[in-house]
């Protein structure tokens, strides 16, 4: 299911130069937008639409709503572009702003969720349909994340969105690393209690995969 990725040491300089290029483009576009060039915002949307739609999707698991929420986040970014203090990267600022938008949107119109105790647990995988069974288990786990209490759900969503980078997830949530770790640990304990048999299933993933996408 998971192909081992390239060696992290080989991909790191490439990734960092990509991130640097992205950061430079962000800075240039923000400067142009603030100078009155509305069309320069298109570059920002083009670069960040994928990550923001994915992030919103992880918050609500509804494609249509994810795009609406991501659009709202871009509009909020457009309105508040002047408030980006260049001490942090543009992506850090944008993700934190988007998380706020998604959080308040879900507070106003919560997704219909069942409590984690009632989240369906998949039946034992049928050997002849292994892939379907694996898919069903994965769907159940992802639905169970949405069924977590909000204070534990968001750390899980952001931790995996940021490819298991705790500082990046903590920055997006606006909490200290320790707080995020504590909530994450509690969330994982709740999930483990719900899906005890999954602890025995293992797969391999390359180190490069875990480091991939860390912010510039």
């Amino acid at each position: 299911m998971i192909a081992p990725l390239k060696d992290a040491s080989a991909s790191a300089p490439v990734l960092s130069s990509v991130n640097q290029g992205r950061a430079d483009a962000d800075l240039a576009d923000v400067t142009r937008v603030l100078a009155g060039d509305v069309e320069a915002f298109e570059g920002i949307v083009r670069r960040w639409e994928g990550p923001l739609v994915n992030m919103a999707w992880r918050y609500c698991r509804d494609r249509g709503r994810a795009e609406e929420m991501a659009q709202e986040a871009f509009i909020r970014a457009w309105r508040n572009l002047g408030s980006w203090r260049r001490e942090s990267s543009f992506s850090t600022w944008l993700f934190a702003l988007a998380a706020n938008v998604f959080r308040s949107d879900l507070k106003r119109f919560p997704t219909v969720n069942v409590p984690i105790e009632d989240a369906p647990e998949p039946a034992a995988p049928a050997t002849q349909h292994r892939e379907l069974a694996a898919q069903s288990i994965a769907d159940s786990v992802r639905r169970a994340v949405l069924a977590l209490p909000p204070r534990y759900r968001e750390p899980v969503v952001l931790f995996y969105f940021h490819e298991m980078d705790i500082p990046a997830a903590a920055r997006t949530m606006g909490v200290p690393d320790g707080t995020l770790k504590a909530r994450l640990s509690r969330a994982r304990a709740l999930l483990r209690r719900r899906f005890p048999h999954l602890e025995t299933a293992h797969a391999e993933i390359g180190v490069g995969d875990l480091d991939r996408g860390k912010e510039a």
Partner: protein
Amino acid sequence: MNRTGRDDGKIKLAGIDRILATEGPLIATSGFLASVMERVREEASAPQPIPFPWKRVVPGMLFVAGVFGWGAFKLIRQGLPEMGSISLAPPNLPAAAIQPVEQAGWVALALGISLLSWLLSRRLAGRSGLL
């Protein structure tokens, strides 16, 4: 973490981590960019909101506050001598009327304490993730 060990530059992830860490990317629909830019252009072309006229309001508010303050000062100055002559005597109520009121007070207090403890327990349970 739910990682189970390293082996030749690879980290082994256990079930839940593996599932949540390996979700395929969702691609935005083709009209997404256009729709965002349309809204941005609408926002950009909309007239700027009229700022609240603080410069006009603040003097008015200060004037009103001054008038009320002056009025209160005059009232207190005139009312203080008369206040001294007022004596407050407790109302003369029969014991039969006081007793039920006293009992109702105790019931209200007990209900209040119960409500507070219920709210506190709900809050604590919510923090621990049980609710």
